[in-house]
């Protein structure tokens, strides 16, 4: 090596300077760096191990720590600040038409079975729609119907009432009010609106309801 004799001519840089070097190399390196590699990259006579020890101390309690990874070293953000490395963005989406209709049927007809929902909507209700409403905690399972097959029923939740600003499902406006509010075409109605059931399912145990799922 041509530099070998030359190097001995120079004193090793002061420790503070060595610390700066290690700091810069570790910062810029894409991978953790070993002591041997630091040695090879720093001027002759440097003591990277000592510089690392000083540097480690310097970063104690800071937002960034000097950590040992195997036999190499790297900077890492302090573990307690990990939450800063997340960026939360909330995206609000409109419920699908199927979901909102299903929800409306549950709200107006509860407790209601899936078959009944399908009868009212006139189309099949997908598993995903029900799951989504359950996940949103807007509907939950109610009592099983005491009919053959003992089908599960769905009812709306407290969370649903909260979200829609209702004291109870009975506060849902009737069709007459909907029409008065201009939400319905002004046409004669085939049959009167069905009143929500008064059944109280607040204490329905849910464990048994899941048995047949």
């Amino acid at each position: 090596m041509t530099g070998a004799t030359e190097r001995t001519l120079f004193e090793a840089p002061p420790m503070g300077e060595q610390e700066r070097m290690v700091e810069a190399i570790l910062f810029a390196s894409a991978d953790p760096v070993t002591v041997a590699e630091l040695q090879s990259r720093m001027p002759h006579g440097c003591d990277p191990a000592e510089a690392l020890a000083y540097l480690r101390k310097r970063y104690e309690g800071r937002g960034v720590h000097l950590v040992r990874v195997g036999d190499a070293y790297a900077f890492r953000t302090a573990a307690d600040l990990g939450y800063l490395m997340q960026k939360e963005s909330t995206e609000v989406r409109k419920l699908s038409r199927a979901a909102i209709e299903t929800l409306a049927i549950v709200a107006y007809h509860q407790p209601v079975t899936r078959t009944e929902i399908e009868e009212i909507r006139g189309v099949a209700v997908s598993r995903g729609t029900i799951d989504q409403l359950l996940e949103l905690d807007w509907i939950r399972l109610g009592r099983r119907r005491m009919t053959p097959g003992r089908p599960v029923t769905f009812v709306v939740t407290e969370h649903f009432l909260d979200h829609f600003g209702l004291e109870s499902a009975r506060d849902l406006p009737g069709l007459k009010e909907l029409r008065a509010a201009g939400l319905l075409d002004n046409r004669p109605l085939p049959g009167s609106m069905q009143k929500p059931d008064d059944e109280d399912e607040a204490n329905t145990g849910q464990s048994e309801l899941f048995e047949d799922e």
Partner: protein
Amino acid sequence: MTDDWSEPVANPAERLAAEALIVDVDGFEGPLDLLLTLSRTQKVDLRRISVLQLAEQYLGFVTRARALRIELAADYLVMAAWLAFLKSRLLLPPEPGDDGPSAEELAAHLAFQLERLEAMREAAARLMARDQLGRDIFARGIPEDVTRNRIITYDASLIDLMRAYARIRTRDEFRPFVMDRDHVFTMEQALDRMRGLIGYAGDWADLTSFLPEGWDATPMRRRSSTAAHFAAILELAKQGQVVLRQGETFAPIQLRRRDGA
């Protein structure tokens, strides 16, 4: 700035001629670049440059290039023509009444252009000499990517809910793709109806009196129900259940239950 044009030149004219032969025109980035290079041979600050001398240098260059049959791009020739014009203007006293820009102004502008180009070249050199990211200064080698948590929430308002419910409950009246049969009374319906009604028709009665309530309100409904009921009583007559009569053409059609039926 450009005074350190390294090589000593004994005879500027010779030197220039040699230069012009060596330098390929393509090596210049346009006439202005060529002028800037030529101006350096004047070994003065660009502010003190002699534009007249520069014009002569340029025209000489162009002449030699032509002698050597070097193709010159049009903009070099345009510049040559302009410089020839400028040269004559600088040498001759201004014509009285000439209200165009003076030769001095034009020369000053050319000097300004050269100075500005030179300044930009120096600025570019200084810029490139700066410590550059990825060459002299470095960014974080192990960036810890920010994890973006996208939370999707679904929303619906009470209005949405009510609209949805209203939509379902009024679906029976709302059949956009089905022909509107609201105003059509079928013969089957009329037959069913008449079968129930003829028991009360012991005496002659107008067919119109059998029309269902609400079906004489509009012409369309009246026509549809009249036709259906007329067809129905014909059927009933054929079956021998009613007797029909009509006094004259377009007179009311009357019916009564056939006795003994």
